[in-house]
């Protein structure tokens, strides 16, 4: 019984280790999608955001499929600003 409990606990830990990155992946995908929409709404070329780097809170560096790079951030007035990066 004791061995079974131990096995079960180990299994749960293993599952948690597998599930956590999956959740993080989903969050990152959602962020990429959000930034793709923001860039498109601002009429800028991108196609699709393929990589995101967090620069600060509500401040991101986005790399697009077409090679364009943008900084997307929330300014003091509460507006989302998209700036082209080199």
């Amino acid at each position, binding site marked *: 019984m004791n*061995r079974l409990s131990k*096995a*079960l606990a*180990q*299994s*749960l830990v*293993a*599952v948690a280790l*597998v*599930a956590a990155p*999956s959740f993080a992946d989903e969050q990152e995908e*959602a*962020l990429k*999608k*959000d*930034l793709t*929409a*923001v860039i498109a*709404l*601002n009429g800028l070329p991108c196609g699709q955001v393929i990589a995101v780097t967090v620069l600060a809170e*509500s401040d991101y560096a986005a790399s697009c499929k077409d090679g364009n790079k943008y900084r*997307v951030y*929330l300014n003091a007035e*509460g*507006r*989302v600003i998209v700036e082209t990066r080199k």
Partner: protein
Amino acid sequence: MRVAYAAVLLVMLTAGCVRATSVTPVPEPPQVVATQPATPPAAKPAAPATPQPGPVKAPAPGAKPPAPATVLAAPGAKPPAAAAAKPPAAAAAKPPAAAAAKPPAVATLDLNSLEERLKGTKAIGLFTKITLRGQVNDLLDRFREYYKGKAKLTMTDLRRSYDLLMMKVLTLLQDEDQPLASAIVSSREAIWGLLANPETFATLEE
């Protein structure tokens, strides 16, 4: 025992790896927020009922534009007098008593509900929502300038901007929150009616 343990571990690992796609139950189509008069397709007049960007008549700033054909339940907005819509020729074939009993064409619009649904929808990300809010505020600023007579805009320009913004919102919603997209489509003309009338626009500002 070891075999059982290995089997349990394998099953759980496999289960963990499988990304279950959450199938959200498709809710029933929402109640039509802006109701249109139930007229048979054959009874439709030749001219389109909805104003198109091209033929929109631009009321001069300060001038009273024609009252919208829909009654709007916007906060504080007084419903314009409902014009007794004459049934088209095809509908005239109905008994006159039935036609007289028919209530006037009325459309209601619940802006607060739409706003809450837009805020709550998961189809649009947070940054996208903030961007859209900024663009909505920009459009309202343009209307404000237009009614003050400061802008060189025409009502056609405003209508074009409004349509473009609506298209952006609908594009974002249509795949993942179809009920909300449908509700917005239904309310599209009613919202335009609010914006295009300086009196109702003023009530929105309050």
